């Protein structure tokens, strides 16, 4: 056998992991290092399940990481690649369930509702299920800032997800919290840039929640758990220095309720 294709068995089925591998080195920490003839390298947590030398084929079995003892949370992300929509453009948002901005295996929702607050008032939104992928479609909205939230009740667990959606540019004015039971709200919407601090406020029924832990993460983090944890001060505020591109997610828990806020950045 000169070189082999390496496959891995995951929960979702077998998939090709690397082609033309000519070196495999098992590590002491249940990791397997591999290198192919093109010089590409990979390390995976797995064990060797089968080596079919005649067929130039090695099959690995994935070692699954222990799941974190945390509740799943909801979060919303606008379907735009540059942080905002333009007036009249169809505004859509995706709804996710998981942890640390990583969607989990559970795609079922119970008692799900979604709402938007715009200059025209509050209205309930239709939620579309595209084969397990949930989407909120608002339609063509007027220039301004929209507050969107979704809520789910599953037994004693309740989840809230909120986001501010910018339609048009340069809206820095007059935003008020939506008055959710547990809400994370930016203290100054105009400043959301990488390389600067961003401040949020945690409110419970509109009142500042003091001394509560706020988790923060960002899209594409390589950490298994939330990379940032802060505690709200006597005004219910917490501050985070933004060091990553893309969207951030803030999350707070109080009893059986978990509430998230997605910070949408243009850059």
């Amino acid at each position, binding site marked *: 056998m000169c070189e082999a294709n390496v496959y891995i068995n995951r929960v979702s089925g077998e998939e090709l992991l690397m082609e033309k591998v000519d070196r495999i080195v098992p590590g002491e920490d249940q990791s397997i290092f591999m290198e192919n003839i093109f010089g590409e390298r990979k390390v995976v947590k797995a064990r060797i399940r089968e080596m079919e030398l005649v067929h130039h084929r090695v099959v690995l079995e994935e070692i699954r990481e222990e799941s974190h003892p945390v509740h799943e949370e909801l979060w919303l992300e606008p379907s735009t690649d540059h942080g905002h929509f333009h007036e009249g453009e169809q505004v859509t948002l995706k709804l996710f369930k998981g942890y640390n901005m990583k969607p989990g295996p559970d795609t079922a929702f119970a008692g799900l509702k979604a709402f938007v607050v715009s200059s025209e008032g509050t209205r309930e939104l239709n939620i579309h299920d595209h084969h397990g992928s949930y989407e909120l479609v608002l339609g063509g909205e007027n220039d301004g800032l929209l507050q969107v939230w979704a809520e789910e009740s599953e037994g004693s667990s309740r989840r809230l997800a909120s986001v501010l959606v910018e339609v048009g540019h340069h809206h820095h004015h007059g935003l008020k919290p939506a008055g959710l039971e547990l809400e994370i709200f930016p203290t100054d919407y105009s400043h959301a840039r990488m*390389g600067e601090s961003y401040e949020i406020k945690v409110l419970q029924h509109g009142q500042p929640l003091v001394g509560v832990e706020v988790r923060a993460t960002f899209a594409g983090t390589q950490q298994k758990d939330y*990379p940032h944890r802060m505690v709200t001060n006597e005004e219910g505020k917490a501050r985070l*220095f933004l060091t990553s591109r893309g969207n951030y997610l803030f999350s707070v828990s109080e009893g059986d309720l978990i509430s998230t806020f997605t910070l949408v950045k243009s*850059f």
Partner: protein
Amino acid sequence: MCKNMPPLELAIQFHGHICPGLLIGVRAAELAQKQLEVGQDSDEELVAIVENDNCSVDAIQSILGCTFGKGNLVFKDYGKNVYTIISRDSGRALRIAQKFGSTAGPASERFRELGGKPILTDEEAGEKETLIGEIFEKIMSMPAEDLFAWQEVVVELPQRASIRKTVRCDSCGEGVMETRASSRDGQILCPECQLK
């Protein structure tokens, strides 16, 4: 993109990733803009003399517009994080030097150590992400006085880049800038063919 890109984003898009060296360049470029009251170069109003060829120079190019292609980026191979930015319009020049050890610390050491590894485990990749976050905040939040020493200096203004005639190399047939070609045995040769 319909929103103005912040300087930091300009640098990251140009360079391709975030790293400590790039952030040093971002701070130096922004300091030069503030002190010299200039923006981004359009057509050689600014000149940058850089004394290294590390990541920071990509921030100088993308934010100040002093680029290799325009000819208003002058490289001196001294291996020093020193940047002299010149404004042709005002005649002012600012020399910015990173203070020795200003960004040193355990996080930088460990980041450098991980950067030297050809491949990282998941845990190390996560650690590296945490470290760059810490270093990022430190460099971008640090008072300029702690990061750099700077002073206005008098420098001879470099000539503006000039466009030269292209001639044909008699050996390889390719075009070569007239001032880089030479004549040997009655033939015009490009530098490469002169070495054959």
